[in-house]
């Protein structure tokens, strides 16, 4: 039995803000900050967009590419750190909006930026055990960076939906492993608008440790070496970290560039690695092998060893925009409009 990805879809809002504009307000050389992070611009959700709307659009795009009967979807999980409700799941709204309700299970996941991949792992199990025929896992976020904080240059909005199934998969998940520890590198307390983080602590002990440990575990289990992969995609909080971790693991830049999208859209948090993976699937050919490792603060990494199947030739990719296409039209806004859209302004009655 092949279990893996049946179809996928991506949504990124059309507004952008440039690091130089953010720097202008906070007295920093924003262009230099952007260059240092390898981020040219980040996406900003419109006033009427949130993790729910992004998740619905991404899921609908996935279903446009493959005629999965929504009534055969047995589970929907949405992973995010910016669910609009603290209590009331995003997943049920998605379920109604893709007409999959009511005969299915649904839940929201939270694990910082790896909530979407955690959902994929859960679905792989349910599909392999034949509890469900298809499941949908979505990683989507409209994350906030505190005004003037380093994270404000990268915290962006976007999401990707993956339909997991068996047999008619376009990409087979050969192996999946995870590396999980209690590492408080980045967190947000209940009721707080902005997250806090350990600055440089988020690097070596968090991002790098978990991704490298997970990737090594995965390659050991799969019996592979970096050269065996056509593509590698990692969680991408900025443009630099994934290139550095790739080098640490022995991957070449060329293997990573296709899936590296943070420079153009910012860090979409739970959408991050999954949007990168989608960009790879937008181009991949049968037989291509992909190493995909997410990272979520708190902390953990989920790794996937994936092989693209022949089924991708029958796949109606053009029924929905590719990552390249959907990010090609955008509108740059200023910091004032950005604070309005991101609801950072204290309003009447608050």
């Amino acid at each position, binding site marked *: 039995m092949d279990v893996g990805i049946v179809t996928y879809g991506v949504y990124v809002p059309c507004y952008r803000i440039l690091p130089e504009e953010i720097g202008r307000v906070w007295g920093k050389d924003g262009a230099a900050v952007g260059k240092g992070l390898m981020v040219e611009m980040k996406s900003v959700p419109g006033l009427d967009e949130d993790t729910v709307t992004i998740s619905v659009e991404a899921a609908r795009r996935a279903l446009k590419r493959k005629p999965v009967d929504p009534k055969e979807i047995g589970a929907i999980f949405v992973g995010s750190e910016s669910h609009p409700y603290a209590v009331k799941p995003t997943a049920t*709204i998605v379920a109604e909006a893709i007409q999959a309700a009511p005969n299915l299970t649904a839940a929201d996941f939270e694990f910082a930026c790896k909530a979407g991949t955690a959902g994929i792992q859960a679905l792989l199990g349910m599909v392999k055990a034949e509890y469900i025929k298809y499941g949908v896992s979505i990683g989507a976020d409209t994350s906030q960076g505190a005004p003037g904080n380093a994270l404000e240059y990268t915290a962006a909005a976007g999401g990707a939906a993956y339909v997991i199934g068996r047999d008619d998969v376009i990409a087979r998940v050969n192996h999946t492993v995870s590396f999980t520890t209690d590492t408080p590198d980045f967190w947000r307390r209940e009721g707080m608008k902005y997250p806090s983080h350990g600055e440089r602590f988020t690097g070596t002990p968090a991002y790098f440790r978990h991704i490298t440990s997970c990737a090594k575990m995965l390659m050991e289990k799969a019996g592979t070496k970096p050269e065996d992969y056509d593509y590698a995609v990692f969680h991408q909080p900025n443009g630099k970290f994934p290139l550095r971790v790739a080098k640490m693991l022995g991957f070449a830049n060329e293997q990573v560039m296709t899936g590296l999208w943070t420079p153009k859209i910012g860090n979409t948090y739970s959408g991050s690695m999954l949007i990168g993976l989608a960009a790879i699937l937008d181009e991949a050919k049968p037989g291509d092998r992909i190493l995909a490792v997410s990272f979520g603060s708190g902390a953990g990494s989920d790794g996937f060893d994936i092989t693209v199947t022949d089924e991708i030739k029958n796949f109606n990719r053009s029924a929905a925009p590719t990552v390249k296409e959907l990010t090609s039209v955008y509108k740059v806004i200023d910091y004032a409009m950005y604070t309005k859209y991101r609801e950072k302004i204290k309003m009447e009655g608050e």
Partner: protein
Amino acid sequence: MPVPRYWRYQDQRYNLAGSKCGVCGGVYFPQRPLCPKCHRESLGKMERVTLSGEGRIISYTVVHEPLIDYEHQAPYIMALIETPEGPILLGQIVDAEPEEVEIGREVEAVFRKLREEGKSGTIQYGYKFRLKR
């Protein structure tokens, strides 16, 4: 809006679910239990059908003086959209400048927040339209 009334029309707002008369084939949006042409013969024979969300602008306006809970969205563009299935839909046009909107332009439906009932009330979702580019 009281929660039950909002919830009752969810499927219609999320999925553009309308009704097709089993007698004359007329398609209506929103749903209705009774066909205005076939009257009592249509009772119990109205089927749920979903519209594709494709359409064309037949008129539009830019709203500068909004309703309660829409203040911060203003100005926003509202349009009447004719659909290939028959019904005309009313909705906002998003991600566009007013100058880009014109009668005859093609649009597609998208899923967006309509409004929030304050900071502690429900968030209400439904359809809006985006210009096809």
